[in-house]
């Protein structure tokens, strides 16, 4: 499961990520479940964080940073993970743009529901585009499955995000690595939502960069997977479409 780190939190912080940390603290038995979980970090949240930090060998500063997040992450449930990803999307919209932030969010949602995402190169692929799916979280919440391959899933994330079709086919349900490769522009350093290609033309595989040196790769039934983009030796290059 991917539980993205959003930002540093401290007393007075407000947002759905604060609520998500409260849920995780409750799951970790540092807070009682109750009806009063708000989106604001109050004094009790600080106390709970301090206790959690003490028990996990962290500096007890009562603030929520990447190190505390790394220890607490395993206590988030899927709802909490979704809240963190939504908050990350909100924060990223200002820096990387609304479309790329949404595409990355959808890729994370797909990863977090990997059991419902199948791999196929048959006519069942491009299901996101063909069905006009607008939000994968809602699609999976209804226990719907999804049939995609590497290029069709990447295309689908772009489709939901309202980005241009990386195949330049106006989302007609077609496209593969060969069409992805001849559109957009080559970039040397990846930004979130850039697509990475493997092999040589018409290329064997494509992944979507999600930040933090990681990409989401849907190349087999066991996918989507989170990995370093350079996990295989035939990485070719990155392309950008915005």
């Amino acid at each position, binding site marked *: 499961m991917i539980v993205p780190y959003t930002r540093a939190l401290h007393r007075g912080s407000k947002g759905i990520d604060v609520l998500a940390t409260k849920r995780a603290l409750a799951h970790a038995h540092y807070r009682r*479940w109750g009806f009063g979980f708000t989106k604001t970090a109050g004094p009790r949240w600080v106390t709970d964080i301090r206790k959690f930090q003490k028990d996990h060998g962290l500096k007890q500063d009562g603030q929520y940073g990447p190190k505390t997040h790394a220890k607490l992450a395993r206590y988030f449930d899927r709802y909490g993970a979704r809240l963190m990803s939504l908050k990350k999307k909100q924060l990223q919209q200002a820096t990387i743009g609304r479309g790329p932030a949404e595409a990355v969010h959808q890729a994370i949602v797909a990863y977090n529901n990997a059991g419902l995402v199948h791999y196929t190169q048959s006519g069942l692929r491009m299901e996101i585009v063909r069905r006009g799916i607008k939000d994968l979280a809602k699609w999976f919440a209804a226990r719907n499955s999804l049939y995609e391959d590497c290029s069709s899933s990447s295309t689908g994330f772009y489709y939901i995000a309202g980005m241009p079709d990386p195949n330049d086919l106006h989302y007609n349900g077609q*496209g593969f690595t060969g069409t992805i490769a001849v559109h957009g522009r080559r970039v040397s350093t990846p930004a979130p939502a850039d697509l990475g290609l493997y092999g040589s*033309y018409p*290329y064997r*595989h494509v*992944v979507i960069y999600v930040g*933090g040196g990681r990409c989401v790769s849907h190349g087999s039934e066991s996918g989507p*997977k989170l990995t370093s983009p350079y996990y295989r030796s035939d990485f070719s290059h990155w392309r950008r479409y915005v």
Partner: protein
Amino acid sequence: MIGRFKRGEAPVDTGEPVYTLTDEDGDAQDPYVEGEDGDNSELAPQYEGLVSQEEIDRHLAEEGK
């Protein structure tokens, strides 16, 4: 019920790795996958008509091949 979730519906430790996607030191586990997933070479003939030879040539020229 608490909101949409039942009381006590705590995440069960399934051994599933948890990744935090932070640029800083803090990823819970190394997410590298093994093997070389992904091979759409059989898909290429099916869709080859979608790309003109001109587009392919331009792309290959850009790639310096």
